[in-house]
């Protein structure tokens, strides 16, 4: 193994600038003649906008322009699109009410943007925004997921019962038969709590219009600049795509919340031509709480049917998913395509049926958040599996062993084909690392101290490496899901790689450079990774769904292989041999079986200085593109085991040990993978123990809009994680990789809640399992 090649713990190249304060984030970019925007947001969850009086605001110092929803609608601008069509069970399409970039007649959630004020300074913009007087007619709000479809008020006239769609997946009749003939049916009613993403860098945008070229540049904190540009140009503003450059520079965390095309940057691009100056907006923290797309928010009933041996015979899931006030970019596919297809988990359950009712509410839009549908599905599966074990009197490890899928490829009853995995191996390794055998002694020792110990399992699977475009298209996707890469070899043999993937914390500049350096046999310092700029990168679908290495990395590998293939032809000419006799290894082209060779850098130089070159049959230059569309999803899987100790007097839960054994396929950089796992675990533990977004059910007011009321996980909330891996290489990409970005957040919440319910002997406890809830659960049991 090369010291900086595949499999090496190379320290992150990007950390030099991040750790020394030299990152370049959107808000760091200030353009000539810069102006600043502030949005006027509705304080009401649901209200008619009767009148907007901007006169006082317009007269305030520094104000450049003020625009309202009516101003934008008058120019014929449509609303934000939803990227995925979901059909109802009866085949009719979902409801897609308009999502204006500034609300026109009604505001539909607290934080809905109703006007924008543009001024010389940010302080002037904010002061003037406060002086905009909006006459609201307050309407009753719909804010509760479970009861939204029965609410008297309607978020949209086009969906009077607030139902966006009712979607079914799987064989309902087979599941009903399994339940009817079961030895035992375990049932659980659970809630997947709503979360607010909280990237460290808030959303930000800076839009500039250049009159001389009639073109726009948008800097935006975003995970997929090409998709942002495509959606904005083709579906909203009608600007020719080649007249818009979108740059997503350093991005300080996304977690899904920066995938989407948001209203704010769209308004800025629209307004930049009208004011003739660049306009910058950066969300303050409270705006982030109010207006970033939130995550999760399901209310679910699950039933698991079993035979007398604890073998699963059928599973039925009925869930209501809150999509918020408007359909965000991928809101419709998260609780359906990314959810129901994962309900087999690691188990050979023969029949599964899932019905999803998506409801509109007067709350912020809900969309993908780290894991996106898969944490919700895993929570359902792993909670009911653990509950089923308890109902059957089986050990939680044993019920899993009895039901694991063991032959591959395996076609699940919910539409996926797992290519490879070894679920027993991950489970057994986790059982060993967690010292599961020693748990009873530790539990007894804790009991002697008056403490309650519990242990919980979660054997998750996820489908990532999104996605085969044809499969996604058949399921309703309105976009392809390939990735693009370009490998530009410079005359000196140095390499710049352009990738359509986007790094916002994942370490692509290191991992991708390791892959390229390893494959080309050159030092990692000779490789730079460029991303996040539609003006540089040929195309890209961006980063989400743990897809960057499996899909974006493969596109790069394909481009590298094209470079090597062309290099062989150049080398063959230089070495006066046949193309087919040239082999490439460790950075050297060689005539097979001889010592005749030419190094990579010489071939590169020859390509750009083609004096001795086969010009009659080969173009000069050494620069190759590749697009890669995967043939299947990848299926990372593993087992997490959480052990907790609870103080019954305070309800405080301490995680005494958290063990995660994951199969991510081949690993390029173990240090970066461990970092991703640690971050994911922290996020999942945050969901299970600390984080909960609360809207007042009556008024629709967001009650958790600061860090006083929304608890993010901190270092002292977390244990030292015990992590391990087991490798079964992915069968359908050349690197054999699967993806690791979301696994921690997907697998950990059920392990933790299973441990808490085990410790205190209750069937369920709501997330976040705060000390108060745990204490009350203990009291209710006593």
């Amino acid at each position, binding site marked *: 193994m090369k010291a900086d090649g595949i499999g090496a713990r190379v320290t992150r190249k990007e950390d030099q600038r991040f750790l020394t304060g030299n990152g370049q984030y959107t808000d760091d970019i200030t353009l000539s003649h810069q102006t600043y925007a502030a949005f006027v947001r509705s304080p009401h969850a649901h209200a008619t906008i009767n009148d907007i009086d901007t006169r006082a605001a317009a007269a305030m110092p520094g104000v450049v322009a003020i625009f309202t929803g009516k101003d934008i609608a008058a120019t014929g601008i449509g609303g934000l699109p939803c990227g995925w069509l979901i059909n109802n069970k009866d085949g009719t399409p979902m409801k897609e009410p308009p999502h204006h970039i500034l609300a026109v007649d009604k505001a539909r959630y*607290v934080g809905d943007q109703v006007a924008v004020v543009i001024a010389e300074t940010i302080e002037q913009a904010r002061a003037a925004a*406060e002086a905009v007087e909006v006459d609201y007619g307050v309407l009753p709000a719909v804010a509760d997921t479970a009861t939204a479809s029965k609410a008297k008020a309607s978020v949209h006239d086009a969906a009077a019962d607030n139902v966006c769609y009712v979607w079914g997946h799987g064989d309902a009749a087979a599941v009903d038969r399994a339940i009817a003939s079961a030895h035992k049916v375990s049932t659980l009613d659970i809630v997947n709590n709503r979360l607010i993403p909280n990237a460290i860098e808030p959303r930000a945008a800076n839009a500039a219009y250049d009159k001389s070229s009639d073109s726009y540049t948008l800097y935006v904190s975003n995970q997929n600049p090409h998709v942002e540009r495509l959606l904005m140009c083709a579906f909203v503003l009608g600007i020719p795509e080649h007249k818009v450059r979108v740059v997503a520079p350093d991005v300080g965390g996304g977690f899904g919340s920066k995938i989407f095309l948001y209203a704010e940057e769209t308004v800025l691009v629209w307004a930049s031509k009208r004011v003739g100056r660049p306009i910058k907006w950066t969300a303050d923290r409270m705006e982030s709480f109010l207006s970033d797309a939130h995550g999760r928010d399901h209310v679910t009933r699950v039933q698991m049917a079993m035979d007398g041996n604890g073998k699963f015979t059928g599973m039925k899931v009925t869930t209501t998913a809150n999509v918020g006030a408007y359909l965000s970019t991928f809101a419709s596919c998260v609780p359906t395509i990314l959810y129901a297809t994962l309900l087999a988990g690691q188990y050979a359950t023969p029949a599964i049926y899932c019905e999803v009712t998506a409801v509109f509410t007067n709350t912020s839009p809900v969309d993908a958040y780290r894991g996106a549908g898969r944490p919700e599905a895993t929570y359902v599966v792993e909670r009911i599996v653990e509950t089923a074990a308890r109902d059957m009197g089986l050990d939680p490890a044993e019920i899993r062993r009895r039901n694991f899928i063991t032959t591959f490829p395996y076609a699940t009853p919910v539409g996926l084909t797992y290519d490879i995995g070894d679920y027993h191996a991950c489970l057994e390794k986790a059982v060993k690392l967690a010292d599961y055998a020693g748990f009873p002694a530790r539990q007894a020792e804790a009991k002697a101290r008056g403490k309650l110990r519990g242990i919980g399992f979660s054997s998750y699977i996820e489908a990532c490496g999104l996605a085969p475009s044809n499969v996604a298209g058949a399921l309703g996707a309105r976009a392809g899901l390939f990735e693009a890469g370009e490998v530009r070899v410079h005359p000196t043999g140095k390499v710049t790689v352009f990738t359509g993937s986007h790094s916002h914390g994942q370490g692509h500049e290191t991992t991708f450079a390791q892959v390229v350096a390893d494959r080309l046999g050159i030092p990692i310092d000779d490789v730079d990774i460029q991303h996040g700029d539609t003006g540089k990168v040929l195309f890209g679908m961006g980063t989400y769904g743990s897809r960057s290495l499996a899909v974006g990395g493969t596109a790069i590998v394909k481009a590298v292989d094209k470079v090597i293939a062309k290099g062989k032809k150049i080398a063959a000419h230089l070495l006066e041999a046949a193309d087919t006799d040239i082999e490439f290894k460790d950075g050297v082209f060689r005539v097979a079986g001889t010592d005749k060779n030419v190094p990579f850098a010489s071939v590169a130089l020859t390509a750009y200085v083609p004096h001795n070159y086969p010009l009659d049959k080969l173009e000069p230059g050494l620069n190759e593109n590749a697009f890669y569309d995967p043939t299947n999803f990848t299926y990372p899987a593993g087992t997490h085991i959480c052990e907790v100790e609870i103080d019954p007097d305070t309800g405080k839960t301490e995680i005494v040990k958290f063990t995660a054994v994951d199969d991510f396929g081949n690993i390029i950089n173990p240090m970066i993978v461990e970092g991703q796992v640690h971050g994911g675990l922290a996020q999942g533990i945050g969901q299970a123990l600390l984080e909960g977004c609360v809207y*007042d059910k*009556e*008024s629709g*007011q*967001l*009650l958790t809009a*600061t860090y006083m*009321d929304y608890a993010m996980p901190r270092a002292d909330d977390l244990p030292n994680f015990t992590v391990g891996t087991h490798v079964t290489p992915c069968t359908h990409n050349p690197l054999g990789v699967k993806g690791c970005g979301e696994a921690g957040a997907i697998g950990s919440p059920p392990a933790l809640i299973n441990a808490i319910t085990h410790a205190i002997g209750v069937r369920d406890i709501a997330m976040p399992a705060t000390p108060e809830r745990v204490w009350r659960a203990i009291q209710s049991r006593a």
Partner: protein
Amino acid sequence: MEMNDVRTINAPRERVWVALNDPAVLKQCIIGCDSLERQEDGSLDAAMSVRVGPVAAKFKGKVRLEDVVAPNGYTLLFEGNGGAAGFAKGRAEVTLAEDGAQTKLSYSASSQIGGKLAQVGSRLVDAAAKKIADDFFAKFAELVGAPAVPAEGGGGAGGGGVPAKAPSGGPWIWYVVGAVVVVVLLYAFMKR
């Protein structure tokens, strides 16, 4: 937010009533009250400045009565609007009764807060509300007579007294309670 309390004011009801009809007294009892003006439609407009630490804001409030059943009780509706700071609105059911030489005042208020007020202040409202109410009655008692004391078993009293007919000049006490609630909410917000 819910707020219930019973207050025994250590003064005869007639004296309490007179004081409660004196806007000058009320203004002194509501900290930060800039004006209290009765409108032609019978409602009351209140304007208040609140300054806590470095933060200052002006709130406009409106209070009006419904279901007036003289002299036993009223339902009071209130709204306060602080512009970008958010809004508060709600209702309070109030009763006033003679209790020997004292006067017993009961109120049960519920309110909604919105905008920034809800986003940053919701957790603090209950505690802050109690403090503001205490401050109001302490000041009121100081102005009207002997010290005020909280009654036993808050929330359950009312309706048992023998109310006299309402004096002329309007039931100012209800406005006061509404205004207090508005101030309480404001205070809770500004305290952030």
